[in-house]
């Protein structure tokens, strides 16, 4: 349980930080495509007897590389590059998962890959997760400023001498690592929710970058911990002694948080209606 909380918290925090930039750059689709590549990677890893998380990470990095090469950074090429990679990866994943279920003795391989396996993480993978997690955070910290500038405007960044392609590639690497790691907790299908959900909620609530990151991390880590606790508790619900999947709880909490993030704006709007028109205009700004 402690391992689940520790790893889950770390991974969720990283995912939220990277997710803020993903939403900023409008690459949510790309983030999602990478989770599908991770599916192929994880299921492929299982086939050859390796830990899925290795496959998640390697798959994600390779997928990011391919997307880079095809041209995900150019605005026109972005959807195409993403879609192509997504399609190919999902096809591979289908093959690997089928082979997994027919050749492997353990059942539930697809469940593990697709929906997470935080409770059955081998203790040997824990140090790798921590190391990769720290590397991802370090990457983001390193390119924070030029990444922010080039996410706002490619033109301005290039005019200032920022190596936009390199910065973008480093970001993609961080994204791939983050997606790979969070697939461990929530599985690949729901990894997007942990990537995009907390930042989406945070961006509705605050106007500043550092606060957005803080709120996103809060929501992501909080949802993960709450989800883990609820999943533990769900063993005691109902007649059969089966718990519900952790990833479901995590995503459910994230969704509730997103809905809740719309409330402050609503309250501000209602306050504005009661105020004078001039004040209402200022409040709306």
């Amino acid at each position, binding site marked *: 349980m402690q391992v689940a909380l520790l790893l889950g918290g770390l991974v969720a925090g990283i995912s939220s930080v990277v997710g*803020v930039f993903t*939403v*900023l750059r*409008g690459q949510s689709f790309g983030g999602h495509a990478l989770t599908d590549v991770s599916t192929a990677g994880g299921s492929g890893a299982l086939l050859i007897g390796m830990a899925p998380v290795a496959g998640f990470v390697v798959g994600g990095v390779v997928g990011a590389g391919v997307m880079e090469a095809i041209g995900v950074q150019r605005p026109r090429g972005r959807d195409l590059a993403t879609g192509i990679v997504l399609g190919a990866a999902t096809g591979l994943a289908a093959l690997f998962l089928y082979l997994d279920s027919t050749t492997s003795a353990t059942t539930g391989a697809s469940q593990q890959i697709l929906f997470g396996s935080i409770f059955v993480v081998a203790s040997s993978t824990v140090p790798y997760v921590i190391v990769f997690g720290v590397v991802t955070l370090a990457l983001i*910290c*390193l*390119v*924070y*400023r*030029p990444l*922010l*500038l080039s996410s*706002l*405007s490619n*033109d*301005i*960044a*290039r*005019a*200032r*001498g*920022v190596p936009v392609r390199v910065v973008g590639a480093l970001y993609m690497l961080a994204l791939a690592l983050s997606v790979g790691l969070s697939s461990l907790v929530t599985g690949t299908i729901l990894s997007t929710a942990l990537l995009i959900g907390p930042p989406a909620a*945070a*961006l509705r609530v*605050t*106007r*500043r*970058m550092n*606060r*957005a990151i803080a709120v996103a991390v809060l929501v992501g880590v909080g949802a993960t911990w709450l989800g883990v606790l609820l999943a533990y508790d769900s063993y005691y619900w109902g007649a059969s002694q089966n718990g519900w999947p952790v990833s479901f709880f995590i995503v459910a909490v994230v969704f509730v948080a997103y809905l809740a993030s719309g409330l402050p704006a609503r309250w501000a709007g209602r306050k504005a209606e009661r105020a004078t028109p001039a004040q209402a205009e200022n409040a709306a*700004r």
Partner: protein
Amino acid sequence: MRLSLSLGFDYAPRTSWPRSSESALSRVRRWQEDRNLVVAGDRERHTDGEPMSRGAGELGAKEVLRLDGIDVWLSGRQILDAVSFELRPGEFTGLIGSNGAGKTTLFRVILGLLRPNSGTVFIDGRVRERRSRAIGYVPQKALLDPDIPLRARDLVALGIDGHRLGIPLRSRKRTALVDEMLHAVDAERFANARVGQLSGGEQQRVLIAHALISQPRLLLLDEPLANLDIRSGQEIIALLHRIAKEQDVAVFLSAHEMNPLLPVMDRIVYLAAGRAASGTAEEVVRADVLGKLYGHHVDVLHVHGRVLVVAGHGSGDEEVLATSPSLVVS
């Protein structure tokens, strides 16, 4: 000394912003020098306003930018043909040309984003290097996404160090500098609003502040008046004119209509058919000069202080090819 454009003080920053490659010792020295000198990009000026020249072999230190015989071919078409002109500090210059005339291409050459097929770009008398901090750039497309978690003042702050690695550290000096800049462009009213929720004119001001805060000597604006209503456009022109005169910055902006700019432009660079003519408006906007650019006969009409350029075939068979109030291109 507080920056106050309308009072015409020299802009003497209270802080110095160290370059990334400087040692701590030279940083301290620069901080001390800032007390007496006005730091300006790659060069330093003494308080009497004369730029220091760096060597005998350079071209005149007076120009901020000089283009010499720039040719650009793209996809088999010649976009720019032997374009040459110079820009001096404190001058407000307009780059006039219809859409597709090559204005953005020219800007990209100046910014170093596009290598010309031939010709040279001189910045401050030196050949353009990969990174030149002497140029501030305001691009054409505004930041439209209302979700971006940046306030106007955050965007301006990014202009100080957005190109450096790492996370920005908040400091009082930084905040004070940003405040000064916002005051200078009259953006204090919406300094804390989300960038994506500002109107077109307000976004322009913030982008101008962002470009100006690093104290460039040349301010490049790509069609700043497009998508602005007349009133906002006039305010932006007035602001840029003030900036040019009081900050001694060369302002170079592109537009496809020259009439709004005629009252304030010192010089004009007229781009047509890939060729450019530069000089004052009186020198350039003339039938003979423009006719040579276009390669066919044109007429220049002056109507109530406005200029109308009409393409004609010279055989009495005049044809108004468009009804834009300022400029007609074949």
